[in-house]
């Protein structure tokens, strides 16, 4: 696939050209943090962001989504999708890899989700190599960053005064055709490699993945879980900010005066008590210890690709560090792994 080198000055023009074809969502400052939000120009974006509060999965699996509406006397209506093409600008490698993982859940199973497929299809991805990982990032350990190996339409890498823009798809090629820039040289690719090396040297958190699935299954009774269960608030922040957590609840809501209603889904979280509750008050994960073990175990131990395909070895966690950044109780899954390993 081709590429171009775009001067930083021309990025605005590129974005405005893109905005003629796509609704653009990019990182925008919100208080001390960032969120992915609709933007109209490059100035509205802050491409030096670290991570956003909610991961980009919110665009593909909305926090709350109507499955269908119904009338009591029969008749079901699926929501109409009218949205045109959109584009996520500046998605980091961790979040991009997270989407590839969600694809396994919502596209590759026996019952693919039409709404997810549609949204994936109509959404272009302009990825951005991370040159300044935050103190909580560990994508390198997870093999998901700091620069993505694929899955993007366009990949931007900050080379100082310019961006190296590489296309990763036909759509990417078309997008790059809109950009003003010069041809890519070997020096540019070298610059990218250097930028990645430099980024790698900045990671403070690491996870040793060797035999990690067995590590977790061997340690189901490790006292660490009990201790975490005492600290854990079961607030759900970790799960809701996780880019690969896919769980949801399904509920019916009747309108008043009860002639019809909607069946909708909403993000759910395994750390919440209700998540595993069944009729008559039964609960398979009543203890917070079991729930925090499920969250961390699912992310680093038994979840991920091995749950959806035959092969093993790709964890559900992509190392974005959000759950660490936002946990009020200071629970850090990289530390938990160390503890399980007895380090």
């Amino acid at each position, binding site marked *: 696939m081709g590429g171009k080198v775009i001067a930083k000055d021309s990025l605005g023009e590129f974005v405005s050209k893109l905005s003629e074809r796509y609704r653009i969502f990019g990182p925008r400052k*919100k*208080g001390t943090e960032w969120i992915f939000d609709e933007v109209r120009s490059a100035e509205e974006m802050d491409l030096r962001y670290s991570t956003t*509060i909610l991961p980009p999965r919110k665009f593909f699996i909305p926090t709350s989504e109507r499955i269908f509406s119904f009338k009591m006397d029969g008749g079901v209506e699926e929501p109409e999708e009218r949205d045109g093409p959109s584009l996520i600008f500046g998605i980091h490698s961790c979040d991009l890899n997270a989407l590839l993982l969600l694809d396994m859940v919502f596209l590759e199973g026996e019952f693919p989700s039409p709404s997810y497929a549609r949204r994936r299809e109509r959404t272009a991805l302009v990825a951005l190599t991370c040159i300044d990982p935050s103190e909580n990032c560990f994508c390198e350990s997870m093999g998901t960053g700091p620069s993505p190996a694929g899955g993007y339409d366009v990949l931007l890498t900050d080379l100082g005064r310019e961006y190296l823009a590489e296309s990763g798809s036909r759509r990417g090629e078309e997008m790059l055709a809109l950009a003003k820039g010069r041809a890519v040289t070997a020096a540019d690719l070298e610059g990218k490699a250097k930028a990645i090396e430099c980024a790698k040297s900045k990671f403070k958190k690491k996870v040793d993945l060797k035999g990690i699935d067995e590590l977790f299954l061997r340690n189901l009774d490790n006292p660490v879980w009990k201790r975490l269960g*005492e600290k854990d608030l079961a607030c759900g922040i970790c799960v*809701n900010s996780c880019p690969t957590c896919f769980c949801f609840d399904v509920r019916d809501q009747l309108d008043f*005066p009860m002639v019809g209603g909607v069946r909708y889904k909403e993000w759910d979280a395994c750390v919440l*008590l*209700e998540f595993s509750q069944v009729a008559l008050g039964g609960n398979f994960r009543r203890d917070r210890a079991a729930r925090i073990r499920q969250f961390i175990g699912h992310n680093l131990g038994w979840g991920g690709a091995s749950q959806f395909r035959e092969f093993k070895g790709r964890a559900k966690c992509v190392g974005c560090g959000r759950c660490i950044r*936002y946990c*009020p109780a200071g629970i850090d899954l990289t530390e938990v792994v160390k503890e399980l390993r007895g380090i």
Partner: protein
Amino acid sequence: MAKPKLAVVKMTGCAGCQMEVLRIEDKLLDLVGAVDVAYFYMATSANRHGPYDVALVEGSVSTPRELRELKELRERTKLLIALGDCACSGCLPSIVNWVPPQESAKVYERFLEIHSKKESFQRVYPLSAHVRVDLELRGCPPHRDAILEALKGALLGIKPFLREHPVCVECKLKENVCLLVCEGRPCMGPVTAAGCGAACPSNGRVCEGCYGPMSDANASSLAEILAKRCGLSREDLIGKFRKYAGLTPAFSKEASGGI
């Protein structure tokens, strides 16, 4: 089928919950079509005595007269719903339960004289301290959507969906900047039941806990975090937990200073 009979009853409270019931404006006319409002003193002068299918009871129990009324009501009511914090946990006025009785007697110069005629426990009790409560709609006041859900549930004979998970869930789903983690402000969201739509954090304020404890509140851990991260003193922490729901089992330890 006869329309279910609804009663809206007030005990010791501020009427805010009844006001929230009235705020179902757009659905009010439909509601009247679906239920028979048999008793609602604030809204109508055509009040009938039970039996009722559903009773929404606002306020806590603070006088012998109310206790009598509540017990009678329970007998006449199929589904008794505690409407709002006062009914569920005593709400802010429950702070008085920690005040020695002599102090509250100062409220009235001739307290004892009045007291002999108009008795008061000088304490507030949630309804569940005295009768079986079928459903609790928490919040100060509970959101009208929850009230509607409860009424629909009553009409359908099912348990309504109420958010028992913490405010943090709704707060995150709204993509608010976390006031506790990012700004070090003493937010009660992690132990407080949702349902308000994370009203306070979405409006730049820390959650004060007005929906009472969530299903699995880890009060002691949050107390530790608030002390460490936000520098709250022991007194501050008591104040935080002894506010809307200090009487609930989940908060009572922290509300009493950790004992």
